[in-house]
């Protein structure tokens, strides 16, 4: 396989090429001509190229190993110990695939519309893809922070420049709010990341480094770990968004162009969850255990608040938005169950949620065009009569959203709740109501828009071939994941266990582990590799992650 840098920078390069080409043709290129523009076509080429490479990395993934694969490691800033280090692991390989898929779908969707200044628009779009891929693949803390911050900039421009004004909330205000919210979190994370690198180098006595895996964060005192954890958590929870920190979400979601929102909701929220799993749990296990209850309560609040909001909103985008809050709540719940099952369910659910929310938003866009531009579900209704294909595609997406048994989302939520049960019984029981509420809001959206009386403004027609070209591939992937979730589970199993291992033993979810005393020393126990650990602890609660849900799953699919 080619080096990962090509995957990351290919989209940005083609986006830049598109911008330059429209510059060369003169700034008059305002998109008056219908259909395809050169920048749009180049962007699509870049997104498809990245998708091809990402599929290649998934196919090429070596399942048994916990080592990073396809590593690129160059010293970027020697004085600061920052490496340009990229690598594929079980944690990020599917998220990279998800990113590439959703960006390809969104760029295709964006190509179906006319944009002012297409060169600049598609440049920002592709820069965003590069930054997100970079954040997933970065194996250096400082590099991760850099990509994490960088990915906001193109979104700032896309929302502010091409978004929609909604009443008194102009797009500029909405985008400012959302950028400030997220940057507050990510700058705190910057300070925390630098402190991690510097302090662990001081304590451990050595050169400063930010490379994940080389940071000896175990040398940090527990007080230091705690504040660093909180700073990281602030960044990730805002990004998701989680309940008390979601204030930017409603305005932001309503202002974004729907094509941008597809990737924003589908992919960017996952970077936060990924950060917890890939960075926070392995580096600060002590603090993760310390704040476990807090995080679980936040997750629970997000589930309940998001679900209730999602079935009381009438703006279809906000239904999708608040349902994301709820789903990300489930993911947080799984991660902070601090055991292998929960974390693996969380990882699977990240992919699943991205796969359903992006087509859902695209469908909302299509519905709005049928309903005279209105995104209010009270104006929709009765689409199904003349649009059977569209309605069935929508049904598949809706059922996946509510985690119907048989869908991959079901497996994800099942694992998450199983993990949560082992961690905190009471919280898991309350969280179960979220599963019920999910079917309420998902079905409400579906019924109100597809069935019922035909809305006053609605002119029903079936989906166009171009729209279908966006929707069908993503729906096919949803179906494929429903049939074969092991594809993701197998590849992520080892990496997830390594990631939560220390925190799991600290939290006591690993009572008969081979380490006599849970504490700082457990890292040493890890060195033989998780394979030895799985043989020794098979039968305890942490392990055997992939197996139990497979049986009900296969049965469900068979029906």
């Amino acid at each position: 396989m080619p080096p990962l840098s090509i995957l990351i920078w290919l989209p940005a390069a083609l986006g830049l090429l598109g911008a330059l080409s429209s510059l060369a043709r003169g700034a008059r290129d305002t998109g008056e001509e219908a259909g395809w523009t050169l920048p749009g076509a180049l962007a699509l080429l870049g997104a498809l190229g990245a998708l091809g490479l990402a599929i290649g990395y998934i196919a090429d993934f070596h399942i048994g190993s916990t080592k990073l694969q396809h590593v690129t490691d160059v010293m970027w800033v020697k004085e600061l110990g920052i490496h340009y280090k990229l690598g594929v692991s079980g944690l990020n390989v599917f998220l990279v695939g998800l990113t590439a898929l959703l960006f390809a779908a969104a760029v295709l969707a964006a190509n179906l519309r006319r944009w002012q200044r297409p060169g600049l628009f598609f440049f920002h779009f592709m820069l965003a893809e590069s930054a997100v891929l970079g954040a997933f693949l970065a194996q250096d803390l400082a590099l991760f922070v850099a990509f994490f911050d960088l990915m906001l900039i193109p979104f700032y421009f896309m929302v502010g420049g091409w978004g929609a004004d909604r009443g008194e909330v102009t797009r500029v205000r909405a985008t400012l709010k959302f950028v400030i919210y997220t940057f507050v979190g990510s700058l705190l994370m910057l300070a925390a990341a630098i402190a991690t690198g510097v302090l662990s180098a001081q304590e451990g006595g050595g050169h400063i480094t930010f490379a994940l895996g080389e940071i000896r964060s175990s040398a940090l005192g527990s007080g230091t770990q705690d504040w660093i954890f909180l700073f990281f958590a602030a960044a990730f929870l805002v990004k998701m968004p989680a309940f008390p920190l979601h204030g930017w979400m409603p305005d932001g979601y309503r202002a974004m162009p729907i094509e941008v929102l597809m990737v924003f909701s589908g992919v960017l929220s996952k970077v936060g969850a990924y950060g917890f799993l890939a960075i926070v749990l392995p580096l600060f296990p002590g603090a993760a255990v310390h704040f476990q209850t807090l995080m679980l309560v936040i997750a629970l609040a997000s589930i309940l608040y998001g679900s209730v909001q999602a079935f009381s909103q009438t703006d279809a985008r906000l239904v999708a938005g608040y349902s994301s809050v709820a789903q990300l709540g489930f993911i947080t719940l799984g991660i902070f169950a601090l055991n292998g099952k929960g974390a693996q369910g969380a990882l699977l659910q990240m992919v699943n949620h991205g796969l359903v929310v992006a087509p859902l938003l695209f469908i909302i866009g299509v519905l709005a065009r049928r309903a005279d531009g209105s995104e209010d579900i009270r104006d929709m209704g009765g689409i199904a009569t003349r649009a059977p294909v569209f309605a069935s595609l929508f049904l598949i997406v809706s059922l996946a959203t509510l985690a119907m048994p048989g869908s991959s989302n079901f497996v994800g939520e099942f694992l998450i709740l199983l993990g949560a049960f082992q961690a905190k019984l009471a919280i898991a029981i309350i969280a179960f109501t979220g599963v019920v509420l999910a079917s309420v809001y998902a079905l409400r959206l579906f019924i109100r828009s597809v069935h019922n009386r035909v809305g006053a403004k609605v002119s029903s027609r079936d989906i166009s071939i171009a729209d279908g070209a966006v929707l069908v591939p993503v729906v096919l992937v949803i179906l494929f994941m429903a049939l074969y979730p092991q594809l993701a589970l197998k590849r992520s199993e080892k990496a997830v266990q390594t990631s939560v291992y220390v925190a799991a033993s600290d939290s006591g979810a690993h009572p008969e582990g081979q380490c006599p005393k849970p504490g700082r020393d457990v890292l040493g126990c890890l060195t033989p590799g998780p394979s030895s650990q799985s043989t020794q602890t098979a039968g305890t609660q942490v392990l055997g992650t992939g197996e139990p849900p497979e049986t009900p799953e296969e049965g469900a699919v068979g029906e």
Partner: protein
Amino acid sequence: MSAAVLASAHLKGPHVDFAGLSPLIALLGGATIVLMFGLIGSRWVRANLVPALSLITLGAAVGLTIWQWDEQKSIVSGALRIDGLALALNLVLGAGAACAVLLSWRSLAAREAAHGEFHALLLTSVGGMSLLAAAQNTVALFVGLELLSIPLYVMCATEMRREHSLEAGLKYLIVGSVGSATLLYGLAMIYGATGSTDFSAIARALGGGGLATDPLTLTGIALCVAGLCFKSSVAPFHQWTPDVYEGAPTPVTALMAVTTKVAALGVFLRFFDVALISAHGSWGPAVAVLAAITIVVGNVGALGQSSLKRMLAYSSVAQAGYMLAGVVVATRLGVQATVLYLVVYLFMNMAAFAVIVARERVTGLGDSLDSLAGIGRSDPVLAWPMTLAMLGLAGIPATAGFVGKFYLIDASVSGGYTWLGVAIVVGSMISLAYYLPVLATMWMREAPAAGRTPPARPGGLPALAGGSPELDAGAGADAGEAVVPADGGWEVGLVAVLGGAATLFFGIVPQPLFDLVHSAGRALGLL
């Protein structure tokens, strides 16, 4: 009689290290030459040759600095130190001043002040800064500071027909004099306590016994901190900054914002991290608190400003706070981080000020935020540098500002001031609320249809109060002189593009900057 004394005394000429002094000689000699050329009758020569000579002078000073690069020596009987820090700062000063010269070519300020005098003042001021950056003796420090300041007081007031310019000059004069007086008083007290004006002798005296906690020393240090804070606009001594920055002609503001800060922080580094290093326990926490206050005050003050120059003034206050963090920790890492940030700060601010100058000339809206409306579409050559400058000042990755801020936080955390590192990021958060609206104005607003009235041409200037009518008449009708270009001017665009490109380039490839500051870090002999 006197002949006999002369004959009997064994006179020995002092040894003068001309090589070490050469950058300073070039600057001050150039100032004299420029002043002379300003007397030539031809207006064309005055308007074009004089700035060209200024640029050549600055180029010579930079060249001589590079020639001296690896030197480590004290010259003028220990009053000045030529080392990595002084030379690195000289480079920054030369580049900043060259940008200011380009911005003031064809500008009103230089014309009003008769070009020769304007550029001579500019070069003298830069000479003062260069002296300050090398000063190793409290007397040299004070001389450098005054040499820096006095020309700037005059330059602030060079747009004589504009009240704000005069106000800025007067305000700067008064506040600056208070600052100088405070500093002088503090220096005198330190002399009184330690019995020496030499930095290393002061350090030895303070390191010796209980002097470091002596009330006289502490008062002296406090007054020195206050005096230098006036100069580098550190809160709570920053109140003059917004008014002066706003009132002064924009090219002069650019010069003040960048080079003055370079010189003031340079002297902060050398005086505090060399002479007063033994008293670090006393002034370290105090200056750290000042830095944190400055970060908050600067960033909060910049919120909601509609004048770009005022906004950048407050932002420069905040940036001074960030850079003080490098002084506070008093480590080699801190020195390097501060110097690196100064370099980065040069790029970002010069790009921003160049864009402001260009838009002032085109729109007639002055430095209002509205003057930038819609330039993302109409004038991307200016919009991109401004975008990069704002993102850089906010500390976004892939710009040099990110690297600079990263290094400063790194230095504060490893120097034991983690909370100051957190203060830096809190400041950056607040700063987004005023940097991002600038981007929004450029890229997300339409250009106002009716706002494109060009500014008043020189011929239509109001009469100078108290000036002679003949002089005014003569000033109004100078045919041969380069007038303020209506399109902003290519040289201004060049400064903007270079600044923006450097901000981006060094954000991605920062290694050259680290190589540059390495020698500066070694110079002070810190850990």
